[in-house]
């Protein structure tokens, strides 16, 4: 029994079938990578799962809860958190304020309007713990927008982690990173394995092969094949449409 299943997901943009009856399953503690050439519909799929785009058909279940009918924010509350391909943080706020805002969403009502939030010790402690976890403790008071790209990506990840997700959707967490940042991110993601299952969308094949327990290949909105690294590397069609000569050598 999988922790997360998506069944028969369909999304049309006019005449274009961006997501073509996609089935996907992620087990508890698993890192499941989703790869595919540009335009394969990876980001669309992430948006369907997180609810930012409404699906035309299909069903999404996380830990026995049907998410299909839930609004995006309710899906997060049900345990499904996500990161963004284009880093999405609060650029004009300090890292601390970013984390506080993320932590606050999960700790009681945000309609509280008379007591000072920054005086809540429980929130501050959780924010600091998150910063520690994501390697941001040294830049807590810096403005998020002034951080180097790699740190912003980590902040983006830390914001998602605040939700204590059961399933974490990572949309290209290594995008635009140099090898060093990339390797740190791999380490961070690997360390999350015990806390949450992960659906990882990534172009960096080295990272994917290092991290993934299972890899699904998406082509033209369809899952071409699914399996471990060896299976995918050896799959003739995958080589043809995606990996090409890189694996052949």
């Amino acid at each position, binding site marked *: 029994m999988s922790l997360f299943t998506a069944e028969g997901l369909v999304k049309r943009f006019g005449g274009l079938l961006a997501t073509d009856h996609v089935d996907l399953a992620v087990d508890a503690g698993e890192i499941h990578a989703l790869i595919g050439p540009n335009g394969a519909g990876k980001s669309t799929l992430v948006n369907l799962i*997180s609810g*930012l785009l409404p699906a035309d058909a299909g069903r999404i279940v996380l830990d026995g809860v049907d998410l299909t009918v839930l609004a*995006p*924010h*309710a899906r*997060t*509350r049900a345990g499904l*958190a*996500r990161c*963004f391909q284009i880093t*999405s*943080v*609060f*650029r*004009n*706020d300090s890292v601390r*304020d970013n984390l*506080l*805002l*993320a932590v*606050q*969403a*999960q700790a009681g*009502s*945000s*309609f*509280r*309007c*008379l*007591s*000072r*939030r*920054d005086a809540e010790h429980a929130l501050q402690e959780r924010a600091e713990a998150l910063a520690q976890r994501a390697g941001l403790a040294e830049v807590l008071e810096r403005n998020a927008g002034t951080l180097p790209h790699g740190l912003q990506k980590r902040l983006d990840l830390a*914001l*998602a982690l*605040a*939700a204590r997700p059961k399933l974490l959707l990572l949309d290209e967490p290594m995008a635009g990173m140099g090898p060093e940042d990339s390797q740190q991110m791999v380490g961070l993601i690997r360390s999350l394995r015990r806390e949450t299952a992960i659906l990882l969308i990534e172009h960096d094949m080295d990272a994917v092969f290092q991290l993934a327990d299972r890899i699904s290949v998406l082509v033209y909105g369809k899952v071409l094949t699914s399996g471990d690294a060896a299976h995918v590397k050896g799959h003739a069609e995958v080589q043809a449409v995606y990996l090409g000569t890189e694996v052949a050598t």
Partner: protein
Amino acid sequence: MLEPTSQGASSAPCAAAAVTHARFPGLARRLPWLVLALLAAFPLLAPAFGLEYYVGFVRRVLIVAIAATSLNFILGYGGMAALGHAGFIGVGAYTVVALVEAGFSSAWLAWGSAALVAGLAAAAIGAVSLRTRGVYFIMITLAFAQMLYYLAVSLRTWGGDDGYGLYTPLELGAWLDGAHAQVFYWVVLAIAAAVFALFSRVAHSRYGHALRGIRDNEMRMVALGYPVYGLKLAGFVAAGAVAGLAGGLLASHNAFVSPSIMHWTQSALLLVMVMLGGAGRRWGAPLGVALWLTLEEVLKLYTDYWHWPLGLLLLLVVFHAPQGVAALLERRGGREGAR
């Protein structure tokens, strides 16, 4: 909303509040209280300087500042550019008219009802409008306010186009009536101070932080698990209710209500005043209102073409202080924005 009178005492102290922050931190903390004390003493001091005429003007500035503070809350903190705020002022004012017409005379009942009814109107209008974003939100709030405007024009019982005169002042009750000629001024001042303090406090609460988060990055807030729509609607309703309260007070202040109180140009003017003062700044709304209305009164003394210099001032602000005068003063004071 606008009626003739002149030069107020309220703008200068507010402006100084921000400036002195850096150099005299102790004074900075006390300055809001100093401003409040000055405003409270104004009706008593005014006769000595021959300024009785301006007590009414300051009272109007305070009432408009209440409405502007509520608009600043949803515009500056919530990122909702509502172009129909005067609609709620109008709903508040006409609620007072309706109660007076029905024979009620208690000021507290009338103003409380004004806030309540405007809050309900804001809930209905917000529930629909907040499903849209950006320009569409601006247009739909404008459309709703104009519907209210034309509704008021068509309501014969409440004066229609000609307006409705409130010939006997509302009763404050207890010892307040007749205690002093200017007792209404102090009531307005107390309400304005309370509203300002309340919104300042909310800005630093969980709710205030969440609202700013929505303004800065709505999609991320959704992904973080925030019920964005509900949070925005709550702010919209609170702002509408406070604007309604201001409308109720304005009805008493003018002793007259006409549909023009909620014409869309009034909504636009309110937006302009908030932007001038500094949207999303604590002192933005009162500063903008005091500055604009004071300049308007002063310029009217010299020329019939007072729109010209005000327009030029607006251009200046747009180019040199796009964050508003409050931001400019904070920067001059060498201090980070007090948000």
